[in-house]
């Protein structure tokens, strides 16, 4: 939770104005809503007055009196007016990240406590046989909310609200077609359209990679001249889980390309993720399909795809060193339990460290960082194509591909670049967010916080390279929290195909069901043509998570910006803008004709393959990946993990080389330990931001007052005084010295 969110849930007067009478809204609904500020479309199911929210879990002290609401979207607690300060900044009507609120999918466990019986965990089907005295909500964002029911004859209320929460929690969006959120989303969008004018929406232009032009734009930025955007999957008839558009080598025609699909699991063929300015290419692909026939003629296409114009291709077995989704889930649950600010499960202080080690979460983080930096080094030092291969290409490939790019490409360390990266490698690439986050609770077995693991890795980088990132820890925390809020399209679908179907469906409904005061949705054709047309002023249909203005106030968003960020030099961008000729362009025929060399990279070792593809041996088993007979000793071939100083000089803006040693991989306190009493204060962050503001302000004043000719203080060459950015300006603070 961001600081400054103390205020109670407030609504701007116009926020309630266009309440549509949805199919579910009834008079009963508005019974309580004078007290409770519903989001349009929200429905209060049950309420209980005079409930005490325990503010601190330990000591039992401190409670806030108020009313507990259970709606079809969330559980919300509204403190009594006496306690809520009225001077705070008005909150957005639509931000459910209030400290007293929790959206239903974010509740992991619901426990009712009675002093006579033991605590009982509640599900929709369970029957509560006692009057609860206390209700404990264990949230997935590492919070614990405790509500104590007053002993003043409110027992039936307590019972009802508890059961209502239990049921609402379980059934929240059980059937994706009719989930209650659809109404809310529609209304949210309305609010959003209004805020659009005021918001700095355009400040972080995020490429959504839903339309062709985003792909082309990004390809131009990378300067990958030997590549083109293929629309072979535009109608999702090649592979449903792949995005509409793919980056493939220019010389491969769509006809040839089509033959490659069958050789890969779920038809996810190798395609470009990132192009290194030095010529290397990063590709990702699913594992080879079991039934693919190596004798077939079209294996040549597979070869061409994987070699991507190079003579050497390194296949990185993603799963070899990294934990699987099941491992991640297991250690996440352990971590979650460990970090909960709940004294009943607390580990003794002196055993805390080994308990932390026992979760293996930090091990996983370390493994990801290490593997990513190995791959990044490979890309940097060799000219080859690196293919990340995971059997289904939808989990750790997303993580690894994006992590490698963050290490290698300064652009991804800006907020716009990072958001585009997430769109490209996660959202559109088909990371099954719906299953992994399990927002709809339809299948617990598929749940796995791969995305959180990724955010943790990025956080580690942020710690190690505080000046290299435009965004801050607060941004990552906000991103993490937002992933549990099912209002936005970004994390609600498993792949682009699903998303498009939903949008089409909803869009067509919308056209006929438009209500007074509603904005006409963009016609279907525009949606399908992608965001090229949308440039002029249109936006993707469902609100995405990137519309931060929707949920976070301006001061909160100001915290997303890292004041210590030193922008990369322009020369660095020039490289990325494609001044380097890609390799193999000169003699594509020659390189293709000669079969290239294939290496396998797994478990920190680089092995030459005798056969380009395993099935050429006639064997599909692992035996096919035989180690190359070589005159060299094994030790020479092995990729030594011990770091030796290499000749390459450190580039401030180039490759980041993170350290993954035990003492330096740390716990993301601000995210995991937020519920505990520990002060959630960045070591230097607030002060640094204040100083930066002060500096800007002073510069500006000085700039205004002085004549043009007088020299300005521009020590930080990159950060020229920018008069036009008045946001977040504060009155001068007096430095302490």
């Amino acid at each position: 939770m961001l600081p400054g969110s103390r205020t109670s849930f407030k609504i701007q007067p116009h926020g309630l104005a266009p309440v549509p009478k949805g199919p579910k809204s009834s008079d009963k609904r508005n019974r309580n809503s004078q007290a409770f500020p519903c989001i349009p479309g929200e429905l209060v199911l049950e309420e209980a007055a005079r409930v005490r929210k325990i503010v601190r879990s330990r000591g039992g002290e401190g409670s806030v009196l108020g009313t507990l609401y259970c709606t079809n979207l969330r559980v919300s607690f509204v403190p009594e007016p006496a306690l809520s300060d009225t001077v705070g900044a008005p909150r957005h009507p639509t931000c459910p990240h209030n400290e007293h609120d929790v959206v239903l999918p974010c509740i992991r466990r619901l426990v009712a406590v009675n002093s006579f019986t033991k605590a009982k965990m509640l599900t929709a089907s369970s029957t509560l046989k006692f009057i609860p005295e206390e209700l404990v909500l264990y949230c997935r964002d590492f919070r614990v909310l405790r509500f104590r029911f007053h002993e003043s004859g409110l027992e039936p209320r307590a019972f009802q609200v508890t059961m209502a929460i239990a049921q609402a929690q379980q059934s929240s969006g059980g059937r994706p077609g009719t989930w209650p959120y659809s109404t809310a989303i529609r209304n949210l969008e309305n609010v959003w359209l209004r805020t659009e004018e005021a918001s700095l929406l355009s400040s972080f232009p995020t490429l959504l990679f839903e339309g062709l032009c985003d792909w082309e734009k990004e390809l131009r930025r990378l300067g990958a001249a030997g590549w083109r955007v293929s629309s072979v999957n535009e109608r999702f008839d090649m592979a449903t889980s792949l995005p509409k558009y793919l980056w493939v080598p220019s010389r491969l025609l769509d006809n040839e390309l089509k033959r490659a699909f069958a050789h890969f699991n779920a038809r996810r063929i190798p395609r470009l993720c990132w192009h290194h300015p030095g010529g290397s290419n990063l590709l990702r692909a699913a594992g080879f399909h079991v039934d693919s026939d190596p004798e077939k003629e079209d294996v040549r296409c597979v070869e061409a795809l994987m070699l991507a114009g190079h003579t050497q291709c390194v296949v990185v077995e993603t799963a070899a060193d990294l934990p699987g989704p099941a491992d991640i889930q297991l250690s996440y649950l352990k971590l979650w339990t460990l970090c909960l600010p709940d004294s009943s499960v607390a580990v003794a202080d002196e055993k805390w460290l080994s308990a932390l080690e026992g979760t293996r979460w930090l091990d996983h983080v370390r493994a990801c960082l290490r593997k990513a930096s190995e791959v990044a080094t490979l890309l940097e030092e060799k000219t080859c194509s690196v293919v990340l291969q995971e059997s289904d290409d939808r989990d750790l490939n997303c993580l690894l591909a994006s992590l490698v790019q963050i290490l290698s490409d300064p652009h991804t360390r800006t907020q716009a670049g990072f958001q585009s990266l997430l769109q490209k490698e996660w959202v559109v690439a088909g990371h099954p967010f719906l299953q992994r986050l399990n927002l709809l609770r339809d299948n617990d077995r598929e749940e796995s916080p791969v995305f959180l693991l990724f955010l943790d890795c990025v956080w580690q980088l942020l710690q190690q390279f505080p000046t290299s990132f435009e965004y801050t820890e607060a941004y990552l925390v906000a991103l993490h929290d937002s992933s549990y809020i099912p209002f936005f399209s970004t994390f609600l679908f498993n792949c682009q195909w699903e998303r498009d179907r939903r949008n089409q469906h909803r869009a067509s409904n919308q056209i006929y069901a438009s209500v007074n005061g509603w904005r006409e949705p963009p016609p279907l054709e525009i949606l399908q043509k992608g965001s090229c047309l949308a440039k002029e002023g249109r936006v993707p249909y469902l609100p995405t998570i990137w519309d931060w203005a929707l949920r976070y106030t301006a001061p909160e968003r100001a915290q997303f910006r890292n004041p210590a960020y030193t922008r990369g030099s322009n020369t660095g961008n020039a490289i990325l803008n494609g001044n380097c000729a890609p390799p193999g362009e000169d003699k594509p025929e020659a390189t293709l004709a000669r079969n290239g060399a294939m290496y396998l990279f797994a478990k920190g070792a680089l092995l030459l393959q005798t056969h380009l593809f395993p099935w050429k041996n006639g064997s599909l088993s692992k035996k096919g990946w035989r180690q190359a007979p070589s005159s060299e000793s094994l030790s020479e071939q092995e990729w030594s993990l011990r770091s030796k100083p290499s000749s390459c000089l450190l580039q401030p803006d180039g490759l980041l080389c993170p350290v993954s040693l035990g003492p330096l991989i740390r716990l993301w306190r601000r995210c995991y330990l937020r519920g505990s009493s520990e002060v959630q204060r960045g070591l230097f962050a607030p002060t640094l931001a204040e100083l930066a503001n002060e500096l800007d302000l002073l510069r500006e004043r000085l700039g205004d007052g002085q004549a043009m000719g007088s020299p300005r203080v521009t020590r930080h060459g990159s950060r020229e005084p920018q008069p036009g950015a008045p946001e977040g300006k504060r009155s001068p603070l007096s430095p302490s010295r």
Partner: protein
Amino acid sequence: MLGKGAGGGGAKPAKPSFVSYVSPEEIHKKEPVEKEVNLHLLPGELLLCEASTVLKCIQEDGSNRGACGRLICTNFKIAFLGDESALDDEPEFKNKLIGENDITLHCVDHIYGVYDEKKKSLFGQLKKYPEKLIIYCKDLRVFTFCLRYTKEEEVKRIVSGIIHHSQTPKLLKRLFLFSYATAAPTNTDTQNQTVMFDAIKDWRDELERTKGNMKYKVVSVNEAYKVSEKLPLYFVVPMSLSEENILQYQGRGIPIWCWSCHNGASLLKMSAFPKEQEDSTSQMQKNFLDGVYRTINKPPYEVVKTDDLSNSLPSLQEIQTAYVRFKQLFLIDNSTDFWDSDVKWFSLLESTNWLEIVRRCLKKAIEVADYLEGQNTNVLLVEENASDLCCVVSSLVQVMMDSYYRTKLGFQSLIQKEWVIGGHCFLDRCNHLKQNDKEEAPVFLLFLDCVWQLVQQYPPAFEFTETYLTVLSDSLYIPIFSTFFFNSQHQKDTNMSGESHHAQSSHFRFLTVWDWSVQFEPKAQVLLNNPLYAEKPKLDKSQRKTTRCKHQRQLSLPLTQTKSSPKRGFFREETDHFIKNILGKRISKLINSSDELHNFTEFYDSWHCKPVDFHGLLLPHVEGPGIKVWAQRYLRWIPEAQLLGGGTVVTATKILDMMEEVQSLQKKMEEKHSQTVSQGREVLPVLRNSARLSSLFPFALLQRHSLKPVLPTSTWKDLEDEEDLAKRDDEFVDLGDVI
């Protein structure tokens, strides 16, 4: 060559004449030995032996890469002088006394020799000389010197010399401290603002400052150390205590004042009586304590809570064991070790028990703070000599409760008061003389580690940085400053004056570590100050009084609840309890710990509920995730642990830069407003090169090369034909041009 002559003695260490070199008169007779340009000797420093063509291995990874040069042993340090001239970029944070490749003799922890790839600890006389010398330092550096290319004669000389001078027991008089003090020019005045507590006035001022002068008085009975050699010349006791009482048991059983809380409650310490076998003696002691208690029980003193630290805190032995194990995690002479340990890092860390000891000390301090602040009770800390854990707890309590001690000067005064003058046996605890290993225990380091936990949890509350603490911990081993090289004030005084056999040496003066300019240039000293320190707003007296009153009103509440029993009666109980403790018939731990736990959690929790006041009481987080490893001290020499991005170091430097810029701009604004514009003169602050700092800053330089995993090139080259190679060359050119 004189140096060689002395070294020749080193080769035959059996000769007793060997140790006579230190005699300070000799120094004056002998000409300074430095004929080499590089070698910089301090006044009084004497070259003892040297060896040339020694290879200093940069990283112990099997390869013999490193710098070639001379290895030198003086009576102050072991130094390595590289043949190649030093890099142009001088480290910004340079110690003037100890260079990058210097190890003071007291800083040497262990010496190992490598024989045929086997590592053996070196001590005493050697039959066979190793090919490699590995020196582990107490400040956690590790040096590996390869002697393979050195002449055998020189190897013998240097190895036995180093072992002899750093590992064998020494006499106090042979400390370099004395040679230096004699030889160094006596700079007449150093503007030292730290209160040294060696004068009666300092104690009076302190009583005045803490408003303790109503109930306590400074006594000078110990002038000329009549009472005890362990006690300082002046100390503070309760007003009603008579001189005879103090004299009776050489200061044992006497409550000595440490500090008074704003509400009047005081922190006292007392050295316990040793366990007596005879009943009659113990009976007499019991009676004495009864008497003492009766006298100090008279009204202004009220209730006293006694706390026998030997019951509730780990023993010195435990502390030493834990630290030895803990330190082992960071003494890396082989980088693969480091990689191996990282999977089990946390459980290794936990098994050392060091962090747990830190936590227990902090908890104890919180408990004491609870009694003082929360319950308005005096606290009496009892320990065998009241000079080990007593110092840790009492100074921690004062740092936590009194914001004055969080300033640099205040903190230094505190160390003077509680440790140096208070009689902490630095000489024994640091084992500077190598006379008795059993007495060694890093008590002071434990204290610094505890303070570090506070500093990193509440950076704005402290005027100094963690770098300051790290540098302070390093200064423990620099035998130029007298601060950490005596067991007591008495020992220092006697060794300084008449007793010493050179008649005219009484004029010499020891340096104190608090004079930071001896070690660091002003530019480097900036790094010791916290730019984010939230300075205390100046309050005028009336305001101050009102706040104090408010405090007391709040505090009186729990007091009336808990202490409703008549004070006399309560006190009797306390006394009995207390006496049992003192006489060694220890009360069971259970009772002690259970009531401690109860009180302390409530106080702790309620404090943490409120917003932090950086100038008020400060309680550290002591939960599992709250206690951390002092990374700067323990990881700073490990190149593998270098964060290329810089981590918090870069952020802190950035802040420093910005502060300076803000200040300069503000100054400009003022100038502009006052219309005294001097356009020609642009005062720009000193530029700091903040772009290229790694997390090892300011101690080790940024490794210019990145530590990337190395690709196996041989496999590739076989397969790349010339065409490809040529192409790659082109690309390199391209890249280079663009960059």
